[in-house]
């Protein structure tokens, strides 16, 4: 019963905070449209398809990452700093229920974002989805879970906004640049490629790109990406649980 109310409460908070929602949807859209228009003039080697179609899954992956990190890290730090977490700590609710409702509602938001940006991409650039729906649903779920866990992890490690901001921004920038979003990892220098090719965002973008651009692509087309994302999820969530237990108020 408490999970149902917590989930509902978090959904209400998300959509009543319409300013935040506005930026969460408009910004990725604006970036996508601007870069897609600009990028059609550049050649990133032989990507085989028009740039707008190449870019869309990258932007979706980037959006999932940003929503995951930013909405959860700052929200949890705010709840910690202003005492809301403490108020919940004296009730029977478990951290699993609390976190579950926070992550679950933001996953709903992420699915809405993916759907909206994809719809606008189709409307402006005619970009179609060629693959099956199921792998996309799974990839978005895993990607969301990973980056929401990363947001959770940052909120545990950072004690305040001042600490969280550079960590979030740094992670965000690094991953966006190296993560297969705007151009293929293959054009990066060799040494950096070795790292970039293993990043969670890289796998997410790759998986989504397969599903969006390859005709009839099913789960097997992105099988490696899905496995890699699962591993990343256990790593990041594992760290989050570890640091949470370490830092628990005693």
């Amino acid at each position, binding site marked *: 019963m408490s999970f*149902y*109310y917590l989930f509902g409460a978090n959904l209400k908070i998300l959509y009543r905070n319409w300013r935040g929602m506005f930026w969460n949807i408009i910004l990725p859209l604006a970036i996508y449209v601007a870069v897609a228009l600009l990028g059609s003039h550049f050649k990133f080697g032989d990507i085989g398809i028009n740039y707008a179609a190449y870019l869309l899954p990258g932007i979706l992956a980037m959006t999932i990452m940003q929503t995951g990190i930013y909405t959860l890290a700052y929200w949890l730090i705010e709840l910690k700093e202003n005492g809301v977490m403490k108020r919940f700590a*004296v009730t*029977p609710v478990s951290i699993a229920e609390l976190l579950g409702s926070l992550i679950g509602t933001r996953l709903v938001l992420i699915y809405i974002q993916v759907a909206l940006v994809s719809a606008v991409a189709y409307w402006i650039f005619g970009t179609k989805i060629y693959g099956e729906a199921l792998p996309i649903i799974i990839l978005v779920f895993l990607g969301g879970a990973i980056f929401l866990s990363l947001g959770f992890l940052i909120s545990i490690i950072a004690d305040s906004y001042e600490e969280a901001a550079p960590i979030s921004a740094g992670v965000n920038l690094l991953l966006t640049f190296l993560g297969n979003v705007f151009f293929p990892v293959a054009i990066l220098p060799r040494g950096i490629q070795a790292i970039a090719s293993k990043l969670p965002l890289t796998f997410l973008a790759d998986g989504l790109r397969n599903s969006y651009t390859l005709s009839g692509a099913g789960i097997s087309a992105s099988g490696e990406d899905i496995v890699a994302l699962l591993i990343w999820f256990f790593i990041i969530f594992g760290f989050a649980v570890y640091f949470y237990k370490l830092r628990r108020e005693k």
Partner: protein
Amino acid sequence: MDRIISVTNLTKTYKNTPALKGISFNVKRGEIFGILGPNGAGKTTTLEIIEGLRVQTSGQCAVLGYDNISESAEIKKKIGVQLQSSKYFNHLSLAELLELFASLYGKKINPVEILKSFDLEGKAAATVKELSGGQKQRFTIATALAHNPEILFLDEPTTGLDPKARHDMWQLIKGLNRSGMTIIMTTHYMEEAEFLCHRLAILDNGQILKLDSPQSLIAEISKIYKISFFTEDKISPDFFAEFQPKKIVLEYPKAIVETENFAALPKILNKLQKEKIRYSFLNVKSATLEEVYLQLTGKEYEG
């Protein structure tokens, strides 16, 4: 079960600083139990240990028979807590917040009914931000009671409130207790402890100095009566000599006379009138908890 909270030899040390140095007390069903002490005495730490927010360094603590460490989850189901500074989600209304809190205990409630008993039904659709200080404090207690707990924990329930809101809160707390609620509270206001608490533990520097009813605590120390007034006229200390006062403080325009002799009080007033001394803001007080604290610690009380 009569002792619904029992605390035995509780200690709490942070790094190398002892916050609690071995305190013991019990709270009986149906009473308002107070912990009084200056800031930094360890009041909030004590409460937080019982509530399950902190773990003690050593000692035992049980609520309704449940151990505060191993059975903390059971305790949380049965208690309602008002924290010192309570914040809530900004985008939910009072009614939605109450429903949410009740749901955490598996209870479904009618939020407007509950808000009514706290004089807040007009604000059911408002957010916490839109409330005044007194309304916020009342709402905080409402959320603590939404699930009908057996014990209410109040941490400095009237800090930051104006005098009227404070008195309203006192009436609310007394009313809750009259209908059977057991309450454990902390305060650094002497008057509040005197007015509300059936029994009181005076906590200072991590230790309980005395534990008894406020009336007994006051009766234990020697009775001192204090007359204070303001006057423009010059009075010398000899004026009061015949009454053999314990202490005279003449800090123009304020004068304070302390005496153990109750019969001297009307005589002092008579003399003031006979000598045509013009006085105002006349105040006659008997011993207070402040004197108790001073006797116990040798320090002036700085709440």
